[in-house]
């Protein structure tokens, strides 16, 4: 339990970290966007303000040129007394530096002496207001100050700052919420996986993780784990099945052997029969040893896997040798063994491949009807090396075509015939060990075994 909660905590903190990272990125991009907007809008405001001031200033200068200083002084006094624009500020400074007209009783020395654009603070009843102004020197002495209080811009900036703060707080809250929900979802999804894998590990092999077919990573993980569990179960079933059959298939002849020996001991068997009985017992033992040997071999091959450093060899001569080995048996049974092969190369064990071909031919010849044709084909279809053995015998019903590969499975109608019931198991084990597959198909009539083996891998 401790381990699970630790694992869950790890998952939680993983998703929490993820949520934090996403939230952080989200906030950062928001800040960048806000700051950019702020700077851009401020710049537009400032530009507009300057434009207004410049035009206003140019108007007044024009008037000064036409009507002279006193007219301008009157104009400015009027404008100051009854302003069209609350934010407009003017000041006319005489040639000797004296204030002739305007809002300000006094101007800071720095402003009065400067030329061009100035910014300064004005103390009003509502507090300090920033003023942007243009100082324009006049012909014949004097300076004209034309300016605007930048109240709108300040109001906008304050609004942006306030809104940003709220938005930031909201975004942080939302990020946290998203993180929490994500963490919860991840934990819940993983919780069932952890729980089920734990229970499977404890022995409840039939359990499976629920799949929701959403094809997200969790679903894919669940599917992969379930596929793995299916495979493990299949292997375990195989082992259980095999153990049952081994017990049965080895115990039966052993019992028979034991009975025979017991009988020989207890009964007075005539001397001539005695030797025959002993021969029969020996033959029985040999059959047992052969079955046992085949089982060991099967187990060993099943434990092997295809490796890139397996030796490469030419398959064609191996297949031809096998065909040649079985040719006399075929002709003895009045069967035509029709072998057509092409050069193919493979990586693996030539002895095992020989065994594979031999077992398939053995089966085909055993079950083919007399006077028919057994075909053996070896070719490369571009994707893989194909080995096909077909006969025109009784075939195998569709329902049994997978089952016959299991250990000791022998179809009822063939129970009496010779063989260990391991031939096809060995074929499949050898095909798998070489990274290939084997399937049984209808040969219409009869059976066709198709072995598909991957090309020699480049080393």
């Amino acid at each position, binding site marked *: 339990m401790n381990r699970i909660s630790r694992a869950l905590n790890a998952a939680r903190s993983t998703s929490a970290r993820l949520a934090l990272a996403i939230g952080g990125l989200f906030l950062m991009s928001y800040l960048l966007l806000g700051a950019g907007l702020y700077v851009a809008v401020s710049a537009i405001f400032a530009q507009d303000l300057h434009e207004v001031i410049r035009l206003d200033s140019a108007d007044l200068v024009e008037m000064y040129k036409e009507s002279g200083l006193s007219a301008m002084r009157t104009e400015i006094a009027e404008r100051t007394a009854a302003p069209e624009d609350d934010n407009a500020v003017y000041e006319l400074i005489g040639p000797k530096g004296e204030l002739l007209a305007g809002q300000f009783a006094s101007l800071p020395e720095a402003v009065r002496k400067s030329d061009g654009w100035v910014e300064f603070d004005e103390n009003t009843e509502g507090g300090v207001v920033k003023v942007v102004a243009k100082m324009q020197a006049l012909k014949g002495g004097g300076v004209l100050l034309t300016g605007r209080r930048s109240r709108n811009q300040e109001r906008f900036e304050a609004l942006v700052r306030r809104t940003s703060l709220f938005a930031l707080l909201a975004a942080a809250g939302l990020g946290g919420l998203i993180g929490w929900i994500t963490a919860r979802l991840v934990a819940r999804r993983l919780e069932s996986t952890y729980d089920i894998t734990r229970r499977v590990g404890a022995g409840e092999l039939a359990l499976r993780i629920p799949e929701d077919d959403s094809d997200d990573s969790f679903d894919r993980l669940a599917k992969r784990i379930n596929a793995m569990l299916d495979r493990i179960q299949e292997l375990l079933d195989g082992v259980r099945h095999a153990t049952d059959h081994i017990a049965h298939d080895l115990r039966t002849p052993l019992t028979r052997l034991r009975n025979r020996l017991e009988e020989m001991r207890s009964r007075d068997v005539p001397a001539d029969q005695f030797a025959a009985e002993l*021969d029969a017992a*020996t*033959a029985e033992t*040999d059959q047992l*040893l*052969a079955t*046992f*040997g*085949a089982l*060991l*071999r099967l187990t*060993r091959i099943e434990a092997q896997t295809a490796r890139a450093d397996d030796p490469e060899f030419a398959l064609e001569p*191996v297949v031809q*040798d096998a065909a*040649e*080995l*079985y040719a*006399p*048996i075929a002709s*003895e049974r009045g069967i035509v063994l029709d072998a057509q092969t092409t050069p193919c190369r493979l990586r693996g*064990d*030539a*002895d*095992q491949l*020989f*065994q594979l071909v*031999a*077992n398939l031919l*053995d089966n085909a010849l*055993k079950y083919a009807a007399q006077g028919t044709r057994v075909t053996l084909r070896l070719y490369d279809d571009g994707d893989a090396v194909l080995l096909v053995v077909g006969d025109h015998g009784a075939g195998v019903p569709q329902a049994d075509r997978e089952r016959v590969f299991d250990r000791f499975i022998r179809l009822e109608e063939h129970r009496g015939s*010779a*063989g*260990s019931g391991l*031939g096809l198991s060995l074929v499949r084990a050898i095909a798998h060990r070489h990274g290939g597959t084997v399937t049984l198909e209808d040969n219409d009539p009869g059976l066709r075994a198709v072995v598909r083996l991957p090309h020699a891998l480049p080393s």
Partner: protein
Amino acid sequence: MRILIVEDDPHTSTFIAKGLTEDGHTVDQADNGRDGLFLATTEAYDAIVLDRMLPAVDGLTVLRTLRGSGNAVPVLVLTALGDVDHRVEGLRAGADDYLVKPFAYAELSARIDSLLRRRHAPSAETTELRVGDLELNLLTREARRAGRTIELQPREFRLLEYLMRQAERVVTRTMLLEAVWDYHFDPQTNVIDVHISRLRQKIDRHHPKPLLHTVRGAGYRLGVRE
């Protein structure tokens, strides 16, 4: 012939010793690698039956030490490990033959005979083999019995050559498969029997005294002995 058995299982060891004694050999036994190596280096044997898994010093080490000291005595390695890899490893260590447990005594006996015979066998330079009135010319690849030519397929030729080189000795089906077909595999049915009966048809038909005999429970023997 004098044969040393190095095998730790007393039942197996006694069983082999009894059989070999009945076959007319003199037998010494050792139940671990150290004693086996001592006997093998101090006494002169015609063949050694060596178990692969032994206490004290393991079989392959005994074998490598023997070969390292220049001892060329024929060695048959017994093993429960039947993999091709293991077989190759054993043969590389210097084994002359390799027999997988469990085995039938007939198989062991035939292989020991074959090993003993190899020492006195016709050398590779021999161009003609002869058993009774059966002749095999290895250069012209011609077979004749009582002066009459016998037509042989290439594989039949190899089969006959092997049987003639092992004349009067029992050879098992497994030995034939390994020597003539050169594959280590486990035939489901006795395919070899069919090849032998074809060969028998060719060499023994029309002749009152058959040369190719079936040895029950063991294999085949080519020879003039009935």
